[in-house]
C-alpha cells in the first residue's frame, strides 16, 4: 500500500500540527495545572472555567471565536503578524486550533497528577533547604511524569482528530490546513471517494494505536523507575 501525495500531505500535516500543539501547550499546561492544583486565589474558578470552555462548547464555536479574537484584522491578529506569526489559512492556525481544543485535556491530566503528589514530600524537601523552584523541578514535576505522559497523549490524539475548530478557523486548504480528518471529510463528499476515505480511516486508527502503545511503554518505564 503506497500513499498518494495527497494522503501523504494530510498525514504529514496532521502529525506536524499535533506534535506542535503538544509541544507548545505542554509548558503552559504544566503552569496552569500547578496554579490550579497548588494555589488558592480569587478568580481561580474563572480561570478553570475558561480553560475548560473548549471542552464543552461546540468546536465550531471555538473556531469562530478564534477568528474573532485572532483574525487578520483584529488587534491580536495584527500583533502576532508583526511578530511574524500568521494564523489565517495557515498550518500555524491549525496548530493554534488544536492547541486550544486539547489544552483542557492536558491541564486536567497534569493537575490530577500534581494533586496526587504527597505534599509531605514537598514539606520534607523544604526542611532540607530546597527553594520552591527546586522542589518543583526535583520533586513535584518528576513525580507528575505519569500525568504529563497521559496529558500529552490525550492532547496529541485530540489534535489528530481536531476538525470543527480547524475548518472554521483556517478552512480546508490541501497541503496547508487540510489535516487527516479534513481530508477524510473531503473524500466522503467526493463521488467515488469511499475507497480513499477508508484508507485514511485505517491510517488514523494505526497512528492512534501507535501513540497509545508508546505512552503505555513510557508510563511503565516511569513506574518501574519509582517502584524499583
Amino acid at each position, binding site marked *: 500500500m503506497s500513499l498518494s501525495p495527497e494522503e501523504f500531505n494530510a498525514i504529514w500535516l496532521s502529525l506536524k500540527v499535533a506534535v506542535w500543539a503538544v509541544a507548545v501547550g505542554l509548558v503552559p499546561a504544566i503552569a496552569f495545572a500547578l496554579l490550579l492544583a497548588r494555589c488558592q486565589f480569587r478568580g481561580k474558578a474563572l480561570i478553570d472555567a475558561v480553560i475548560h470552555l473548549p471542552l464543552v462548547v461546540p468546536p465550531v464555536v471555538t473556531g469562530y471565536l478564534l477568528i474573532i479574537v485572532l483574525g487578520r484584522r483584529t488587534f491580536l491578529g495584527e500583533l502576532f503578524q508583526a511578530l511574524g506569526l500568521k494564523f489565517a489559512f495557515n498550518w500555524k492556525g491549525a496548530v493554534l486550533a488544536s492547541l486550544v481544543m486539547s489544552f483542557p485535556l492536558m491541564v486536567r491530566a497534569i493537575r490530577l497528577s500534581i494533586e496526587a503528589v*504527597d505534599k*509531605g*514530600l514537598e*514539606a*520534607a*524537601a*523544604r*526542611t*532540607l*533547604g*530546597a*527553594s520552591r523552584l527546586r522542589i518543583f523541578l*526535583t*520533586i513535584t514535576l*518528576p*513525580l507528575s511524569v505519569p500525568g504529563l505522559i497521559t496529558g500529552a497523549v490525550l492532547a496529541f490524539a485530540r489534535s489528530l482528530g481536531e476538525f470543527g475548530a480547524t475548518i472554521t478557523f483556517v478552512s480546508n486548504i490541501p497541503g496547508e490546513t487540510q489535516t487527516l480528518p479534513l481530508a477524510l471529510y473531503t473524500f466522503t463528499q467526493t463521488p467515488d471517494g469511499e475507497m480513499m476515505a477508508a484508507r485514511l480511516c485505517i491510517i488514523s486508527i494505526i497512528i492512534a494505536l501507535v501513540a497509545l502503545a508508546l505512552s503505555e511503554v513510557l508510563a511503565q518505564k516511569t513506574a518501574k*523507575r*519509582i*517502584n*524499583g
Partner: protein
Amino acid sequence: MIEVRLKKKFGAFDLDVEFTSETTGITVLAGPSGSGKSSIINMIAGLVTPDSGRVFINGKLLFDSDLKVNCPIRERRCGYVFQDGRLFPHMTVRKNLLYGKHSDASQLQEISELLGIAHLLERMPAKLSGGEKQRVAIGRALLMRPQILLMDEPLASLDPQRKDELLPYIAKLPEKFNIPIFYVTHSRTEILRLSDELIRVSKGRILSAGKPEGEYAGLGSVETEGDYVSVNECRIVDYDDEFGVVTAEHQGTNFYIVAAERPGAERIRAAIKASDVTISLDEPQNISTRNIFKATILSMEETRNRSVLVHTDAGAPLTARISKASAHRLNLAVGCQVYLLVKAVSMAY
C-alpha cells in the same frame, strides 16, 4: 541554648508552651496523641506558623512575633525526621541522602556506615525495609548539617523488632554529632532509653520539664497506658556473674536487677512500675523479694479506677499503686513509715 515560646489556636484546641533547653542531648517531648507535641516541633521547623511566640536556637532567631521575624523553612536548618520517613521515591538512597542544600558529601560515607546503610546507597526507597527507610531519613537529616534534629515519632510505624534495632542508632546520635535533638514520642521504652531531658505535654500545655527521674518519673498515666513508672538514674556498682544480678546505686540506695549480662554502660536508668510495688507495714522476713526499701509516704493520690498512687521517699523517690481498699485497710496516711517490696526492676541505658 534553645528558647521556645509558642501560642497557637487550632479550632477548639489551643497550645501555649514555653521552655528552654541547654542540652545537646535528646530532649523527649512526651504526651498522649493530640496533646500538641508534634505541633511544637512543626512550629520549630516552620511547617506550622504560631500565632505568637519566639523560637531561638543556638544563636539564631527563627521566629519572633514581636520583632516580626519569621525565618523561611528552608533557611532554618532544622533536620526533620518524619514518622513516615518521606523519602523521595524517585531517587536512589544516595540522592535522597545528599538532597539537602547544605549536604556534606564528604560525610556521606561516615554517616551511612554509622547508620548501617552504606550498602544501600544505590537502591530505590521502595526496596527498603521500614527500619532501613527510617535510618536513611535520619541520615538525610544529619547530612544537611542541621542546627537541631527534630524527630516526630520516628519509630511509631515500625514493628517491635525493628524498633529495638533502630533504638541504639538513635541513642548514639547526640554523642556523635553534638547537636540538640527533640524527639517526639509516647512510648515509655523510648522515653526511658533516649531522654536526657523530658518535657511532658498534655492538652497543649507543658506538665513538667527536666531530667526524667525523681519527681519527673511519673511518665504519665495516659502516656504509658495506665502504668506509672518511677525512674532513677543509677551507677552500676557490681555485677554478679553467677546469678546474673546487677547492683545499681542511686544516692546510697541499691537496686538489684536481673540481667543476662553486664550492662554496656556505667550509668543506667532503673525503672519500677508502680503496679509492681507492694506495701507492707512490717519489715518482711524470709521472703524471696530482693528489692525491699524502707520508705516514708510523701503523698497519696486517688486515680480513676479506684486505685491509689502512693508517692514515697525510699532514699530514691518510689511510687506504688495499690487498690483503694488496701490503702484503707492498712490505714495509710502521709508520713507513715512503710516497707516497699518491688517485684521487678527493669533497666534502660
